[in-house]
């Protein structure tokens, strides 16, 4: 009798243990994927805030622009709420614990970039200062990556800054994205036997970007780089994130 009971219980136990072990393995994966999405959103929001303040930053008539790290932070937090309905400052309970740990680091890195640029931003009599979404994003990503085991990078197929050159994985993905309609989510994939997440979030050209990246193709823009001849809505590049599971 006991043996029969055991026979009945054993498959159930095996099924339960297998199912639960899968759940335990998947929970951190979802958390990591979710975190990657939030990191990309936050970096993109920072870029957007810099873009929105571009006219102010490049105004040669004003010295102190008042675009301080604190002002930047508030605008980023407001925009982040608008896009995600998550209040990073006061109520981040909806975020996974990994995101709670990493998003403040990225926000602080972004504020530091704005702080470092104050001298340039507040120069009176100087118009274009090259403090643009791309240069902001490069530095914010680098500062964040230097103080975290998570690596963030801006990349594109024809980078102006060679440090943004895509690796083989990114290049392959960017080529595919360039031929497809715009998407507003990250493409995620687990590589290295499931030990590392790669998340690529595409960025598309808006009208504001085309001043430097639009037509006429090949003619130098204000920063001295040849315009790409891009059109609104085309793929500009991507935010590439790499999160290893085991280096937390």
């Amino acid at each position, binding site marked *: 009798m006991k043996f029969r009971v055991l026979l009945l219980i054993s498959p159930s136990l095996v099924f339960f243990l297998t199912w639960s072990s899968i759940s335990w393995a998947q929970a951190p994966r979802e958390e990591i994927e979710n975190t990657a999405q939030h990191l990309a959103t936050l970096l993109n929001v920072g870029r957007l805030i810099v873009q929105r303040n571009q006219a102010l930053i490049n105004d040669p008539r004003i*010295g*102190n622009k008042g675009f301080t790290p604190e002002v930047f932070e508030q605008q980023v937090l407001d925009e982040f709420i608008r896009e995600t309905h998550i209040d990073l400052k006061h109520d981040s309970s909806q975020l996974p614990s990994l995101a709670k740990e990493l998003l403040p680091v990225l926000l602080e890195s972004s504020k530091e970039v704005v702080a*470092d*640029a104050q*001298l*340039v931003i*507040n*120069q*009176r*009599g*100087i118009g*274009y*200062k*090259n*403090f*643009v979404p*791309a*240069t*902001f994003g*490069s*530095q914010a990503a680098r500062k964040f990556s230097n103080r975290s085991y998570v690596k963030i990078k801006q990349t594109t197929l024809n980078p102006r*800054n060679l*440090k*943004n050159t895509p690796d083989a994985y990114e290049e392959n993905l960017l080529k595919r994205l360039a031929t497809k309609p715009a998407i507003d989510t990250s493409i995620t994939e687990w590589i290295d036997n499931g030990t590392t997440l790669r998340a690529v979030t595409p960025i598309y050209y808006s009208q504001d970007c085309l001043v430097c990246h639009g037509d006429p193709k090949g003619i*130098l823009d*204000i*920063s*001295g*780089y040849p315009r790409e001849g891009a059109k609104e809505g085309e793929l500009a590049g991507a935010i590439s994130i790499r999160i290893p599971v085991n280096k937390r």
Partner: protein
Amino acid sequence: MIVGKSGICIRSIMRMLQHCPKEYGSQGIVPFLIALGIFLQGCGLVFDAVEWVHPLARHELSAICSKGQVRVGISVEPFRPFVFPAVYTDEGVRVTGLDVELIREVADALTTYCGGQTPIVPTLHLTRFHDLFLEMIEGKLDMFVSSNGGNIPGARPAGLWYSIPYFHNDGIGAIIQNPEVAERVRAQFRKQAGNPDTLAAIQAGLSGLTVAAQKGTTSSLYAEANLLNVRLLICDSLPASVETKDPHIDVILSKHSILDYVTNHVWPDWHLLTRNDGAPLLLTQENFSVVTVEENRRLQWFLNNLLYRLDETGRLERMRRRWLEEDYAPTRRAATEGLPFEVSKVPDHYDQGQCRFAAGR
């Protein structure tokens, strides 16, 4: 060394003892020389002897080598194309320009001098132009490079030394907006009928006009000394003089090469004052030098020898053409070859300042 400097001399020896106790102590030479110095009334001989016995005593070049950095001052006011306004790049805040390229050359040469194992990093101190001299004398800088000539009377504060030129045959030029001002000067040249006297033509042509020059620069020294019949405005920077509307400025003086660049690239409403045949009009001749303090004898020789070599190899001429004649975007050059600087050293809330009438005018 002379007898009167024995106090300085003994301090120097004590300093050398402090830095090189092993070398001197082991050889027993220094105690002997100091004892000798007490008996000799002039200890300069002792100092020279110690230097002769041990030429590698700590000096400004070995200090640069041991620190791995050279502190270079550069003007925070833009002197395009010698130094452009700081811009933001993918690498952070950077400055670029001909002066910055020269600083890189100096740093590279210092790296070689120091053995080549560790690169000598140029630490840029962006400072208001007139403060560069003070910071140099106070020992906060090893040198400064700021399109600055030492061959203009009054341009060399005591205690500073000027290298052989890294930029030849520049001089003070003038820019105007109103063509009538140019005509006034040209009329004076015509009167001279083949016997040109630039100073006389300028003095008469600009008489009664409002002339602006940047504080502390050779152009303000020139104006104060030679243009006695003008209303002279002293401005904190060149952009400040361009921006000032009240009082109305008729003429702005600055380095000719700088004015040539800014009228072509930055302020197209302003035009260079030229001779009647269209040739460049230079009010005086000026050569730009690297500046350090009088005591830095080894650094002085190092700089002079380096600049001489850069000149004879054509490097200085290539630099000149690259920044003055080529078509380029400074922002892009800043991104690829610009140098970082210590943001904390930059004056707070830098802006280009204002203009005011010169005292006594």
